[in-house]
Structures are given as C-alpha cells and as structure tokens.
C-alpha cells in the first residue's frame, strides 16, 4: 500500500526561501508541501488548519519568533515535528532553540533532500 507523502508546512518571512523550500520538497520523495506561513502567528494558525506532520520553521520571523511558534505548536499538537532553519551556525543558535520542542536544527546552507530524509527516518521508530 503506497504511503501518503508527509505533509509539510513551510514557515519563512522571505518569499525566496519559501519558494526554495518548495523546490527542495518537490524533488524529495515522500514529502509534499501543503502550505506556507510568513510569520510565527500565522504558522500556529496554519498548523491548526492544515494538520501537517512536519513544519520547517525559520527562526527569525516578524512578531513571535520561530522558537516561540514552535513552543506553541508543540504544546497544542505534540505529534507535529518541527525542524528549525536559519542561517545561524549551530554554535550561534539562541539558547532557547534547544528546549522549544524542535526535533532538529538545520542551517539553510545544509538543507537538501538527503538531509531531510535522514532527519525524518531517524525520528521514526522502525516498523
């Protein structure tokens, strides 16, 4: 039985990165973009509406940060996986990025299909 693709919400205030992330998802087997959000507040609402399994969350956002949005999303939907993205190096990450409930952090420079697939596979228990 074919498994349905993992529905993904893309959150970034820069249109370019939303387009870019869509492009990456389009060539990553097993994932499908189901929506986009431009702010942390919009991300929280969109997760309620669209029920994605995975959220790709930019850290730097207008209004509440990606970290705060992650906290709210994880509190309301504990099963939703959030991966933080930014241009920070891992050492420069804000301290609260580590305990906001995100599964992983990725530098935008390193974001590509194989990396996304690996993060997803390693997070899922083997069946």
């Amino acid at each position, binding site marked *: 039985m074919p498994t349905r693709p993992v529905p993904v919400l893309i959150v970034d205030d820069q249109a370019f990165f939303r*387009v870019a992330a869509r492009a*990456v998802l389009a060539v990553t087997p097993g994932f499908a973009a189901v929506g986009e959000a431009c702010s942390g507040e919009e991300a929280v609402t969109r997760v309620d509406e669209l029920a994605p399994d995975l959220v790709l969350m930019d850290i730097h956002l207008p209004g509440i940060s990606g970290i705060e949005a992650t906290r709210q999303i994880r509190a309301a939907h504990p099963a939703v996986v959030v991966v933080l993205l930014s241009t920070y190096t891992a050492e420069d990450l804000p301290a609260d990025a580590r305990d906001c409930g995100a599964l992983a952090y990725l530098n935008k420079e390193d974001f590509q299909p194989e990396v996304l697939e690996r993060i997803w596979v390693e997070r899922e228990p083997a069946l």
Partner: protein
Amino acid sequence: MPIKVVLAEDSYLVREGVRRMLANEPEIELLAVCEDYDSLLAAIASTQPDVVLTDIRMPPTNTDEGIRAAERLRQVRPAAGVVLLSQYADPAYALAFLERGTEGRAYLLKERVADLDQLLAAIREVAQGGSVIDPKVVEALVAARSRAAPSPLARLTPREREVLSLLAEGRSNAAVAEGLVLSERAVEKHINSIFAKLDLPEARDAHRRVKAVLLFLAEQG
C-alpha cells in the same frame, strides 16, 4: 531574445530556489546550473552565457571561486555580465571583484535574491553592461574608509566629476582621455586629484579607483 544565464551556487536551497524562480521568467533562459568552480568554468566554455549568476564561495576551496570565475569570464567572454551573490557585505571581496572595472558587474547580497524583481533587474543591468552595487556593500565600503567631511564628492570640480563618471563605466585612462578629448597625462592628474579629494590616498591604486567609483555610484543611486 531571452538573456542566457548560467547559475552557480553550492547551497542546495538557494540553487533550487533561484532555478525555480528563473524557470518561470520568459526573459531568462537558464543554460546550466553548477555547484562548484570547475563545473562553472566548463559551463561558461560550453554554453556561451550572457550573464553568470554566481555565489562567491564554492567548492573546491570555498573562498573566492565566484570572483575568480568572473575574472576568467572577462578574458574569455568580455561582453558577458556577472551577478555575484554574497552572504555578507564584504568590502575586500567587492574591491577584488570590481577592480578591473564595474561594467557588466553586479554585487548583490543573497538576501536580495528573495526579491525576484531585484534579481531580474540586476541580471538585466549587467547584460547591458551596467552595474549594480548592493547599497549595504557601498555602506560597508564607506564605513571601512575613514570618516571624512560629509559628501566628499562635492569637492570635485565639474571636470573631475566627468572623469569619475567615465571611470564608473569601467573605462581605462586612455579611453577616458579619448572620451573627453584630453591627454592621458591630464586624465592621470585629474584622477590623482579625485583620489586626494575623496580621501583615498593610501590604498593600492586599483582599489582607490574602485572606491572612488563606488562613492560615485552610491551618490547616483
């Protein structure tokens, strides 16, 4: 006729994003998409682009590949333009990129790529031999140089401004002399006076030239 573009960028996300954005533009024909210096040089040789859109740092050394590729392009395909994409406003890279002339050269911060209109405008501009310098790069250059009196360009004579505007088009001293019907020696004197008035007495000559041009372009912009 569409502008023929070769893209080189090692970041998967930026590369795919730019590829996808340009794919929808009828005025752009994307000839090749490269991930490193060697494949970019090969693509330049085999596809004859009008414009190369390239990251600065790429494999193999992740230092200044984009700038070196632009130099190479100047030799093998002088009419082609280059849009250099940089993560940071780095004055040293900007100077190295522009020291042989700003004609057909654009230096853009990657954050501008987010705005398709700005990216397309830069591609169009360099395809026609023009230049685009990111305002943040000009800012960094101006900040890097000692803070002199406001608007040093105001100290230039009308003749010196004419000379500077021709330098900004990437002309050599000889070409400036021809354009203004002056001797080359007279042009050199004007240029030295421009450097002195713009407070650029110490850096290497090519760099002074680029800085003077950038100040001029900044004021025009």
